């Protein structure tokens, strides 16, 4: 008997995933573990492995479709087997490419209701359409009922409206396909009055991926909905540089992981925040400050898909080497796109490090609903006066953005002061 392959549930909070690309096509023979297709949530991208062996009999959702989790995506079995029972709604979902091209005229003669089937299908029930699609339809003056739905359960999604308004052959009211259009499709395009076409623009449009859209949304919401500002500090990194050197040299003997400067900072932040609960907090409903007992530290990671912020949970209870190991693992998974989306939320404070890229100071944007974010900058040599003499020292920059609704300037400065003190006297912090 044929079996279905479910859209995996990529995390507790994930309800819908978008299929980005099918690796297999109908008719391919697949084994358990073969990559069937790639999909993404708004936070990460994954590959789906086959859970069955046999021939790929039918694909229920095409590229670009948003599919609810734990719904059959395709059917695998022996050629000729009936797969109707596996179809998500008992019928094959319209495939975008074939339903938008005009039907053949021969078909028209046999069935004169050809222009209507899409509309007819929805006459009895309210049109299933996403809000974005409805918006676009209103803006572009197309009738969404004429779109070929490609979303789950016959839902019209934005892409369908775009296809309709750009490629829709219909010249009737609201883009409706008329008999004339069907006949025209069979004939060569008649020459129109020569109207010079505008010069071709020399640029490429790249549609935001789900992840890019999520970042865009989060960033602008953060800036528009909060009173955030940034303080710039620096500290003498002599101690942590020396400590790191020592640990690195003895890493093998002590069976220590590679501990980076950023790990030192993560460690120091996780300890210091405990004394500054207003910065280890969320703003809830605009007027409630939710302080957290433990520090769940978000670490901003630059990935090929865009910015991701995996979280080291209970960082305050973890040792420096535990933090180093975990940070590395999270970064690896985020970059590979295989990270569990549940690890991408729930942080109480975020650290973003651009020091390695030579950034001297910046204004990190708060990761809502958090109240603070630390930007780690590069190390520059500065002069320090001691006993009438100027001595150079390695100064590392820290840019701290905080939410002024939750925290005032002085408390932030006190946090910075304590953090700097901890970083400059790191060994004492380790002993504590």
């Amino acid at each position, binding site marked *: 008997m044929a079996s279905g392959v479910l859209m995996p549930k990529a995390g507790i909070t994930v309800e819908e995933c978008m299929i980005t690309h099918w690796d297999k096509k109908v008719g391919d023979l697949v084994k358990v573990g073969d990559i069937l297709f790639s999909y993404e949530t708004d936070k990460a991208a994954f590959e789906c492995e086959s859970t069955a062996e046999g021939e790929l009999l039918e694909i229920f959702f095409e590229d670009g479709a948003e599919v609810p989790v734990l719904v059959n995506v395709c059917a695998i079995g022996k050629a000729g087997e009936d797969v109707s029972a596996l179809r998500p709604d008992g019928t094959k979902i319209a495939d975008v490419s074939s339903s938008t091209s005009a039907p053949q005229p021969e078909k*028209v*003669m046999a069935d*004169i*209701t050809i*222009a209507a089937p899409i509309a007819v299908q929805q006459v009895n029930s309210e049109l299933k359409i996403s809000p974005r699609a409805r918006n676009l339809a209103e803006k*572009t*003056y*197309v009738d969404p009922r004429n779109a070929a739905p490609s979303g789950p359960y016959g839902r019209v999604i934005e892409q369908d409206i775009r296809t309709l*308004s750009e490629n829709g052959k219909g*010249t*009737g*009211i609201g*883009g409706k396909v*008329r*008999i*004339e259009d069907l006949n025209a499709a069979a004939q060569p395009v008649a020459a*129109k*009055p*020569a*109207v*010079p076409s*505008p010069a071709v623009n020399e640029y490429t449009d790249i549609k935001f991926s789900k992840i890019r859209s999520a970042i865009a949304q989060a960033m602008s919401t953060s800036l528009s909905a909060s009173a955030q500002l940034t303080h710039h500090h620096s500290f003498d990194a002599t101690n942590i540089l020396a400590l790191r050197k020592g640990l690195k040299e003895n890493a093998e003997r002590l069976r220590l992981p590679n501990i980076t400067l950023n790990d030192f900072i993560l460690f120091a932040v996780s300890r210091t925040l405990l004394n500054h609960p207003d910065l280890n907090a969320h703003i809830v409903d605009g007027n409630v400050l939710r302080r957290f007992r433990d520090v769940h530290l978000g670490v901003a990671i630059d990935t090929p898909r865009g910015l991701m912020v995996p979280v080291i949970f209970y960082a305050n209870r973890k040792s420096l080497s535990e933090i180093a190991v975990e940070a590395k693992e999270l970064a690896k998974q985020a970059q590979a796109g295989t990270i569990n989306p549940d690890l991408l939320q729930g942080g109480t404070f975020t650290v973003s490090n651009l020091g390695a890229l030579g950034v001297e100071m910046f204004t990190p944007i708060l990761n809502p609903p958090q109240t603070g974010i630390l930007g780690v900058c590069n190390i520059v040599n500065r002069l320090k006066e001691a006993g009438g003499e100027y001595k150079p020292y390695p100064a590392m920059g820290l840019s701290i953005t905080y939410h002024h609704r939750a925290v005032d300037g002085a408390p932030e400065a006190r946090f910075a002061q304590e953090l700097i003190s901890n970083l400059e006297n790191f060994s004492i912090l380790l002993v504590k």
Partner: protein
Amino acid sequence: MDSFDLIVLGGGPAGYLAAERAAQGGMKVAVFEKRALGGVCLNEGCIPSKALLNSAKVYEYAAHGEKYGVMATGVAIDHAAVVARKNKVVKQLVAGVSMAMKKLNVTVIDKPAVIKGKNAAGFTVAADGTEYSAGKLLIATGSVPVLPPIPGLREGLESGFVLTNREILDLEVLPESLIVIGGGVIGLEMASYFNSVGSKVTVIEMLDKIAGPTDNEISDILLKNYKKKGVDFKLSCKVTAVGKDSVTYEEKGEVKTVNAEKVLVSIGRKPFTEGIGLESIGVYTERGAIVTDDHLRTNIAGVYAAGDVNGKSMLAHTAYRESEVAVNHMLGRRDIMRYNAIPSVIYTNPEVACVGETDESAKAKGIDVQTVSVSMRMSGRYLAEVEGGNGIAKLVVDKKYNRLIGAHLIGSYVSEMIYGAALMIETEMRIEDLKELVFPHPTVSEVIREALFEI
């Protein structure tokens, strides 16, 4: 130089509606109109003629009420009062258009404009020595009556013996006799009015039928009705000369002369494209009409033409729709002009209303059709209200797709019901689906339903 997003040449139906829609869409608009806003339609066409024809209808009912058991004596028409009322109606409507323009901040300039050229800033237009510019142009200069080169016609126009649709609506004294050259829509409506109010009317028409491209059976019924009312029709006759108080025409090689107090020349209208500077930017025209595509674009990007000036259908409602399509295209909204379901009406008594293909035009296009025709007397209301009526409803069906492609009606209220047939054509509904529509009873429109069941 004042600059706009859109300059509209002409303030008729196409021009003022385009200005309205464009302003609603956020564009800064200027309209140039040397006469009154509203164009021919409002000032010397559709609307004023309807005011006159309604007076004629009221008069006819009163004068011939005996068929319905209503006796009235001493019924008379006060033509001057009819014209005064017509002027009041026109004034009110023109004021309404001006008001709408004002409300939407459309700049109205009451001078003729000439296109001067195109530069980086857009198109330049000059009026009375002042220059204006705009990124987009809509040419909606309408049409003018065709005046054939008949000897004596010019002189007749100058002396006031010969009139066009403009002057005839303002006649203060009823002529005892009137010759109408051209039995098209305008000629028939005016013949209808003057016949009703007592003038002796003669219609001279070159073709062997009246009402131009109207379905033959329908135009025949209309002809019979007006012959009965006393209008004299000279069909297949060619006017050869206009005298001081007469018109000479040729009938089957024989030269004849008919005398009259006034002559109306209404042989057709032609697009008004001369002297507006089209050549300065190279707008392409064919036989005097601006060539447009189904977005009303001309060959010059940014220049559109809507209404009579593109010569496509020369009806105010076509102009309305065309101007909307043009403006939608300017605003980047998807829209397209379709000409296959545009109704047309002749406001005679009985009225004639048509939409889509006739039997003949469909056959000429190679469409396999079935035509059904039913008598209006199948409608209870028609029978109750129209004594001795001979109206019909005729449907033309495309057999291949089993859909309606034409409807032709003559009878009462047909001007108001034709849009229903237009809707059926526009939406391409199947005949079996149309049969499920419910029509109000008792109405004349039920004849359409009767006809559907004849298919």
